[in-house]
């Protein structure tokens, strides 16, 4: 009976569990060394801003995983293979794709490459598979919220409350010119900002997402847990954008002046920090919240929309 564990695999410190997991895998595999904000910025995921019309906590993960995760890695020169399948009971071959997934993940572990997967524990976040044990029929996992999570049974791969079988295997790395990465990530940020529709009909992306956020707050028709969660996630993302723009401004010879965008994101970041403070994460979903706080968050969100619009204009002109 085979088994193998890759030691010292740690999830990166970010609220975006996909990129935290990617960082953990890439660092463990020797394919990345650097700050989390830099990875968030260079891949472009820091620019994701997706909001459900009732601020469902799923907001932050509703986008095309296969295509976007592949492209994000490609942008920084990481060659990866991602697989995604939905565990619909009407499918006849899901069990076969799950078994194939088990085989491929084990092969990656044997090659000393941990694997990024969707929901390896009951928490609906991305995580890492860092080992396996055939005797127990389990994968050893790294979770973003549990130091010592229970393992994932082979038979439960792809089964969760949101039952997607998603795994991404990281194969190799090629050098990419920094200027190309900077330009690619900022162009992606602009695309995301101007995206007319997000994946689902109830979700909006970029500047349209602000409209959903503000309307839900004004109509008092929102999921409180979702609000606290997305504010924490996007507080982190906006801060990453701020740091990344500073980095690009210092490093790039081709990108134009970003000083104004940096000043704007500095304000945006402070406002998100305040919003996240007003509804701290882990606010129970059944708690009530003062109208005054919601009013303040609504005002701050409206201000951020205006500031981010201006910042995106500056970025657009700089390219």
């Amino acid at each position, binding site marked *: 009976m085979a088994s193998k564990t890759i030691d010292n695999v740690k999830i990166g410190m970010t609220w975006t569990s996909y990129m935290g997991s990617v960082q953990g895998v890439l660092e463990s595999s020797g394919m990345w060394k650097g700050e989390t904000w830099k990875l968030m910025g260079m891949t472009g995921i820091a620019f994701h801003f997706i909001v459900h019309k009732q601020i469902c906590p799923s907001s932050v993960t509703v986008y095309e995983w296969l295509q976007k995760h592949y492209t994000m890695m490609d942008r920084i020169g990481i060659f990866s293979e991602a697989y995604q399948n939905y*565990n619909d*009971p*009407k499918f006849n071959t899901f069990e076969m794709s799950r078994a194939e997934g088990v085989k491929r993940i084990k092969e990656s572990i044997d090659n000393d490459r941990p694997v990024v997967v969707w929901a390896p524990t*009951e928490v609906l976040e991305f995580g890492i598979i860092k080992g396996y*044990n055939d*005797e*127990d029929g*389990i994968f*050893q996992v790294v979770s973003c919220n549990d130091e*010592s999570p*229970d*393992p994932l*049974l082979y*038979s*439960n791969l792809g*089964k*969760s*409350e949101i*039952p997607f079988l998603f795994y991404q295997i990281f194969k190799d790395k090629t050098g990419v010119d920094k200027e190309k990465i900077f330009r690619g990530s900022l162009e992606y940020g602009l695309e995301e900002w101007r995206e007319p529709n997000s994946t689902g009909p109830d979700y909006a992306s970029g500047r349209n997402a602000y409209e959903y956020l503000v309307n839900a707050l004004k109509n008092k028709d929102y*999921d409180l*847990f979702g609000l606290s969660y997305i504010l924490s996630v996007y507080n982190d993302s906006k801060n990453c954008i701020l740091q990344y723009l500073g980095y690009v401004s210092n490093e790039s010879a081709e990108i134009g002046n970003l000083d104004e965008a940096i000043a704007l994101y500095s304000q945006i970041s402070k406002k998100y920090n305040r919003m996240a403070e007003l509804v701290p994460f882990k606010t*129970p*979903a*059944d*708690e*009530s919240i003062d109208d005054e706080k919601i009013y303040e968050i609504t005002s701050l969100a409206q201000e951020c929309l205006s500031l981010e619009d201006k910042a995106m204009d500056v970025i657009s002109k700089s390219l």
Partner: protein
Amino acid sequence: MSNLHRIMWIDDRIRCGTYPNCTRISAWFEISRRQASRDIEYMKYSLGAPIEYSHVKNGYYYTDETFILPYHYLTKDEKNALSYLAARYNNITGSGAKQLANLFSRITREDKSISHNKLNIPLIHCGLKTGSIHETLTAASKNKLKVKIEYINASNKKSTRIIHPYVFFDKNHTRYVICFCELRSGIRVFRMERFKNARLTNEAFEISPEFDAGYYDGTFNYSMKPYKALIEFEKPIDEEIFKYYIRKMPDNLYEIDFFKSGILLSKLFDANIPFRIQSPSWLKDKLKRRIEKILEKNM
């Protein structure tokens, strides 16, 4: 003159600040003092009125003036709606919702009193129809009878289905029912608020072998497979303690299905019977780490 009319009169007199007493009540209604005293006791102990006697005023008064007499005449639909809300609020933890569950239970005379101090009330939408549907499904689940439903799915498509309701659970202020759906020939989870109609049939159902109540833990994860542990105990165990699927094997060896190692280990300690985990190896490691942590903190 009914007891209800007297109670309403007493309530009215108290609110007017006239401090009624048993002598005045008996004189007004031409009843015995003993009967008047029973009315006061009924208000105090059965209706929960905060009623006290003032020696200074020689009569009764409310210590909490916000008290109102319960409304006695509930229609069946209203009672169903309140029972539904009681069930829903009762499943919300960490908030004063429990107080509402208590209140609704008291009004419907369903004794499920739970105390809770903090009052933060989430809003649960409920029409009379929802209450009626909830009652139908609850009765169907209890009596194992099939239900014909009209259901609107997330894409706003209406369908008529026959379902076998098994269990209910709440998540994010939404009530769900796990059932067997004849249309789909499989276990499905439906949101209660998307039911447009539910009609009880006379046809009985058997629980599908696909569904295993032991694995149900109040989530959508009913399709998840449990971990299996082989554990040897020094003597036979009370299987009820574990609330998991347990298969007894020779020599006090048990195969136990479980979903969370932390809960299983706690139950193993609670059972207070020496045990040895034979498998899986990862569970043995978890036990070792847990004991090491306890020792670290205490030695």
